[in-house]
Structures are given as C-alpha cells and as structure tokens.
C-alpha cells in the first residue's frame, strides 16, 4: 500500500503557484467525489470543503514531515495537502482495501501513519484532546514537533474545546489549534449559537495567543500559519489560528440548505480563494492561460488516475471483517 506519494511539487513553480495548484487539486478532487457520489460509487456521508481550500492548502505545507495532523470529517483537503496519495484517498472513498484506512473509515476517517495523519474524526471536537496528547508525547520525549489540530467553529460550543485549550495552555504544549470558521455548524449560524462570536477572545481566555486571518486568501493563511507554527515550535506553547472562511456547497450531500440565503452564498463566492489567488498571480505575471491550462490538465489526469485506481481496487474479504478491532498480533 503506497499511501504517500512522491513530492509532486515542481521546483520551477513559485510558492504562490504551488498554493494555487493545491487548492485546484482539492477542489477538483472533491467535485469529482460529488459526481461519484451521485453515481453511488461513494456512499455514506460526504462533506466537501469547496470554498475552504485555502485553509488546508495554506496551513498544511507549513508543517514538517515529523509533525502531526488531527483533522475533522471534512478533511479531504488536509489529507491531500499533507501528501497522502489521491489514489489511497479515493480508494478509501470507494471503500476499497487499497484505501488509506483499508475501507474501514471512508470519507470521514482518512488515516495515514506515514505522514502522521491521525484522522478524520467525525465527532465535533473529538480530535482536540488527541492533539493535546500527541503534543504531550512530543514534549515528554523531547521531540521538537508540532501537532496541528483542525476543527470548525462548531467545535467551540463543545466543552472539550475549552478543556483541551486549557490543558494545552497549562502544560504549554506545542499545538496549533486551527479553527476553520465557516460560520455554520451544519445549519446553525455562529451568532445563533454563541453569546460571544469573537472566537479569539474565547481562546485568549486560556492565555492562548491568537491570530485571525482571511481564510479565503491562501497566501495570508500560509504566512500566518508559517509564523504561528514557528512560534509553537520555538516553545511558545499552543496558539490559536482562526481562518475566516466559507463553505460554498451544502454541509453534506443530504443538506437542502434552508438556513442561508442564495445571496449570502453568492456574495462569498465572489471571494473564491482559487479565483482570488489566480487573479493575484496573473497580476504578478506569475501565471498565464497556458500555465493554468497545464495545471488543470495535470490535476485532472491525477484525479482520473486516482479514480481508476479506486475502481480497480479490491474489496476486503468478509472473512477479515473483525481484523484491526485489536492490534494485530495482540
């Protein structure tokens, strides 16, 4: 099983182009997933991050290979940006044995030991204390590593968010708490569920340093993440990075979107992170139509290859149903 792909980032391309490329990869991958969902190749819950790509694409590359990631059930982008191969991810979506979780996790539970990708957690806030523990292990074993923990603003309503930030701050653990504030916890708007909607103030109450960034601007996200990760790695304790973003598509494939207006969605779409970055790179003269076309073709080929790989994959024999309930050999 090859979960980790080779470094596909061409050295000739600038950082700005690489960020754009990653966002296009994530969006194309997820648009393909939506199509495969309607064709019933992918089942279960499928949560797309379309509109939010700048967060995964901007934050993830600022981490080292030795660092750890804990993500949520909307984590295709983080998994791709981390370098888990699109083949292994797509095969997981199909439920195939070649998937990065051997078909036992699905869309919401992508895992990869090789890249220290600890899921894919489908309980809102459930991954936060795991990130605290990973960082605790790093501290106790004197490893200069960072754990990046992604979660939505919905997690802030969970008690475990407050418990985890307090514990990380109390013990000054190297955790980057990265909040993807897309304004909606499924269908519940932030201002309908929180008395204080300034999320940084909540984190600051635990003496956790905070920063808020435009989550639709991938370069701003990358810059903020790079600086924040450095502070965490230098022993500055946990940091809270809020990325203000927006989900363009429904919460999941079952969501009729009765809770927000089309106008609101259209307004945010004008700040599409891919369009913004493309325009910026054109202004800087870093890309032209030819390069954009080339990127699109490369990524499309990569995704077609992933789909073909998933299609050709095998089903875990039913005789192996109860494997991995406990560690093998135990």
């Amino acid at each position, binding site marked *: 099983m090859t979960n980790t792909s080779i470094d596909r980032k061409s050295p000739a391309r600038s950082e700005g182009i690489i960020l754009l490329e990653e966002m296009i990869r994530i969006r194309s991958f997820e648009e393909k997933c939506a199509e495969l969902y309607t064709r019933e190749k992918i089942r279960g819950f499928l949560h797309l991050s379309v509109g939010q790509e700048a967060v995964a694409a901007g934050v993830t590359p600022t981490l080292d290979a030795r660092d*750890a990631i*804990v993500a949520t059930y909307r984590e295709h982008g983080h998994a791709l940006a981390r370098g888990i191969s699109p083949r292994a991810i797509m095969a997981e979506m199909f439920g195939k044995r070649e*998937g*990065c*979780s*051997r*078909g*036992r*996790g699905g869309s919401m*539970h992508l*895992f*990869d*030991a090789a890249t220290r990708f*600890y*899921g*894919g*957690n489908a*309980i809102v806030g*459930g991954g*936060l*204390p*795991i*990130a*605290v*523990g*990973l*960082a*605790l*292990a*790093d501290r*106790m*074993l004197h490893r200069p590593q960072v*754990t990046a923990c992604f979660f939505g603003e919905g997690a802030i309503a969970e*008690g*475990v968010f407050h*418990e*985890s930030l*307090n*514990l990380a701050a*109390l013990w000054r653990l190297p955790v980057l708490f990265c909040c993807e504030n897309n304004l909606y916890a499924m269908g519940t708007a932030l201002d309908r569920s929180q008395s204080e909607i300034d999320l940084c103030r909540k984190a600051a109450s635990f003496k956790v340093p905070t920063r808020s960034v435009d989550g639709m601007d991938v370069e701003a996200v990358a810059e903020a993440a790079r600086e924040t990760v450095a502070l965490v790695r230098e022993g500055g304790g946990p940091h809270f990075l809020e990325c203000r973003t927006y989900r363009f598509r429904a919460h999941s494939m079952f969501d009729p979107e009765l809770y927000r207006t089309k106008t609101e969605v259209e307004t945010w779409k004008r700040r599409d992170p891919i369009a913004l970055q493309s325009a910026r790179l054109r202004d800087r003269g870093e890309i032209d139509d030819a390069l954009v076309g080339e990127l699109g073709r490369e990524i499309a080929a990569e995704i077609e290859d992933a789909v073909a790989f998933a299609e050709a994959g095998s089903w875990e024999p039913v005789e192996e149903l109860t*494997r*991995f*309930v*406990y*560690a*093998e*050999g*135990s």
Partner: protein
Amino acid sequence: MTFGTATAIGTRRTTYRGAIREALREALARDDRVFLMGEDVGRYGGCFAVSQGLLEEFGPERVRDTPLSESAFVGAGIGAALGGMRPIVEIMTVNFSLLALDQIVNNAATLCHMSGGQFPVPLVIRMTTGAGRQLAAQHSHSLEGWYAHVPGLKILTPGTLEDARGMLWPALEDPDPVLIFEHGGLYGMEGELALDTGAVSIDRAAIRRPGEDVTLIAFGGMLGPALTAAERLESDGIGAEVVDLRRLRPLDETTILDSVQRTRRAVVIDEGWRSGGISAEILSRIVEGAFYDLDAPPRRVCSAEVPMPYARHLEQAALPQVEGIVSATRDLMARHG
C-alpha cells in the same frame, strides 16, 4: 514474568491499595514511557490514596495532576499513547468516566479499526467502581459491564491482591486500550502476598475455589461475597465452584463453560443491574454453549434496579449479599432438570 502465588521466598502483608501502588511504582520505574495522569493523583496522593508518594518519587512530569476535565485528559491519554508514550490515566471513579465516554468509546475503541490497523491505542485507564460505602446514586455505579459491550476495549476487574498487584503491567504491555476497574470497597482489603509477586497473566478467568455441584461466577467486588457464600454452602453439603472472571472483555467463555459443564448449575453474581448487564451476557453464553448440560435454569444475583440510595439499610438491600447468593444457590439446587 512471575505469577502471583505464595512461594518459598515468603510473604508480606499488604492491601489492595498498596498492591496497586506497588504496581504503579514498578511500571514507572521500569519504563520511561509510562506516566500517571488524572485528578489529584499527585499532590493529593490519589483520591483513594493509591498514588501516595509517587509524585515525590517520580516528579510532576510523570505523575501529572490534571484539571477536572475528564474528556480532555482521557483524550490526551489517547493522543500520548498514539505518540509513543504508555499513559496510565486515572479517572477518579467510574461515575466520572461518563464525562469521558466520547473519548473512550468513539476514539480509544475505534481508532485501530477505523485506521485499518495503523493506529492502535496502547492506553491504560484505571478507575474506581462499585457501591457499598453510602455514597449514593452518583458515586456508586458499577458500569464495567457497560464498557465490556464495546469492541476495541479490554476490561479487567481485579478482585484479589494478586490481580491488584499484577494486572497493570500486562495491561501496559497490551497494544490496545485496557480499562482496569478497581472496586472501591476493596482498597482496604488486607492479606498476604508473596514477596516476589509481579505481573499475572490476564488471559484467563480463574477458579478461586473448586467445587462439584454448582458454579458461582463473579468478579471484582462480588468475588468476596461469592467465596463466603461458597463456604456457607459447604456446610450444607453443597460444593460450590467459584469462577473469578477477572476480564470481562474478551470474556473467557472456555473456563465458564468447562466449569458449568462439570457442575451442571450456574449462578452469576454481578453488582451491576440485571437488565442488559454483563450477567445477562454470561447467562446467554451458558445457555448457548451448555444448554443441554444444565440440570436447572441458571440464576442471577444482581443489584436491585434502583439508583443506589444513600441510607445504609437501603443500600445494603439494593446490593447482592451473601445471604442472597446462598438462598439463590440453594433454590437452584432444589430444582431438577
């Protein structure tokens, strides 16, 4: 690995509490990856004084006091285990473990399977369980049977000094999450323990008392009453075999069925509630595996189905008692298949 039986080396007097403390001390001394974390485990010395002296001996990095944040420190234990440590998380009592149920059931129990075997969770969680000390409904639960419902977890219930001393190390060596339920009523239990007592095997149930006429199946805090009941039955001429389950998941069905097939009668004693409890599971296994060997319908002695009351007479009436075990067994012996 040595197994806990009296040897020529001699014995010393200790308690259940002291035996667990010794096991903790040994684990901390033996493996740098081991650390103890929980509410009041350090400066206070443990709510039940189990970890007294360990902070002084091993320091605050390895004997970590936590805030009252069960979900976060259990989750942190999971993360630390994934990160290469061997955490021992102490939850003050099983009642408070409900505040960490999400982490235990949704994360610790699932990560290995959900990740296709990539992320086993070598975590040990210790907690106090049981009633009998007039602590009322929110401090008297016996929910180990509940936890035994969940695949991915392993459930240990030490009911003897040897197991209190010896179960921790194999639990730490286990690559999967192991929950150890220490009965609150047993911490003061005194007895002799061989000087060289160390780790015990956690693979099998144990026959604590042989007998030919009936099998009494118990664990944890109910082992003592089951043994006392067996002595009383002896004077009636009834030979009761006492099986100590020791581990509720995976359940050692072989030992249970072997015994019941010999004695042809079974009584299960459980401090948990009867409905949907571990006693129901054990009875089902007996019926499924030894139906035609039974001379009479198997019986159960469980706690009354009430939240545990405070008043002593009510609490005692709610809990399984020796008299109840004896009379249920006598009643069973009077029946014929």
